[in-house]
């Protein structure tokens, strides 16, 4: 093979490798893939917290069941699930280039997130009023307060961050700086927050319901 052939083959090889290196992973655009990787990592965080809570609860015979009513948590669940639907409608509106509609649904989603956070904080204040804190629990083992406030607090932190992100992305989308794909990536995060709540509710609230 001549030097010229080698050069050509080398170039073809390098070009091919470059194409492979730049091909989107799983045919998913880079921004979306980054969000999926974050979600996977965050799944490990929440799973770690919930499984650790399981270990603690299992090894504590006198684990308290302080919740008397499911009304508040039922309303919170309804609001969060509804916010996922409004998020989907917002993304679909953006994909149909209905800018005003997409912005409106994004803001509705953000408002629902704020209502969820307010209800959550109100519930926390009620529990704190009864004497439960991160390191103290009037119904028995202090580990209950630690587990409850840590896990629900981590989720509340995600909701708060999500609301800020929703508002920021929606404003930038309306201003033309962001596109429908950015709304979709934000939506992925919001659905994840909703998904986590589906596990937090039965494990943290319903399993600790007094009969």
């Amino acid at each position, binding site marked *: 093979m001549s030097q010229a052939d080698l050069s050509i083959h080398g170039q073809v090889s390098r070009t091919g490798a470059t194409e492979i290196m730049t091909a989107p992973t799983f045919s998913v655009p880079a921004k979306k893939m980054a969000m999926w990787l974050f979600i996977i990592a965050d799944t490990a965080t929440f799973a770690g917290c919930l499984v650790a809570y399981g*270990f603690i609860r299992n090894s504590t015979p006198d684990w308290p069941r302080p919740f008397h009513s*499911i009304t508040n948590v039922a309303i919170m669940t309804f609001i969060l*699930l509804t916010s*996922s639907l409004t998020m989907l*409608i917002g993304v679909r509106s953006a994909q149909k280039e209905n800018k005003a509609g997409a912005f409106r649904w994004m803001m509705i989603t953000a408002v629902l997130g704020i209502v969820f956070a307010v209800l959550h904080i109100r519930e926390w204040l009620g529990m704190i009023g009864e004497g439960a804190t991160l390191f103290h629990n009037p119904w028995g083992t202090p580990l209950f307060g630690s587990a409850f406030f840590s896990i629900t607090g981590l989720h509340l932190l995600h909701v708060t961050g999500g609301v800020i992100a929703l508002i920021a992305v929606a404003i930038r989308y309306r201003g033309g700086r962001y596109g429908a794909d950015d709304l979709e990536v934000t939506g992925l995060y919001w659905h*994840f927050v909703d*998904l986590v709540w589906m596990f937090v509710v039965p494990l943290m609230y319903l399993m600790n319901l007094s009969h």
Partner: protein
Amino acid sequence: MAAAETHNTGGIGKDVAIYVLLLILAGIQFVIAYQNITASQMFVRMLSVAIIEGGLALLFFMHLSENRGLMWFVAIFTVAVLLGLQYGWTDSYRLLEGVRWSH
């Protein structure tokens, strides 16, 4: 990025159907909470419903059903992490029941 990457399969009708299904499943969890069963039975039933809920949200709200490669990537990683986290149960039972698991 792919403005072309739209998710029109099923449309808003499917989204609403999944939303209603998720509400029903969430309602079932609340019904289970009032059943007169042991804590372990309650845990298994509630977790089963939660896994179905989570699966529906992942597949349809997060559109994972439209990308098999990504779906397997997420599934394998998640299952591996969850299995890895189970290491602590033996210690949990040892704390509860003494020496049973200590040998």
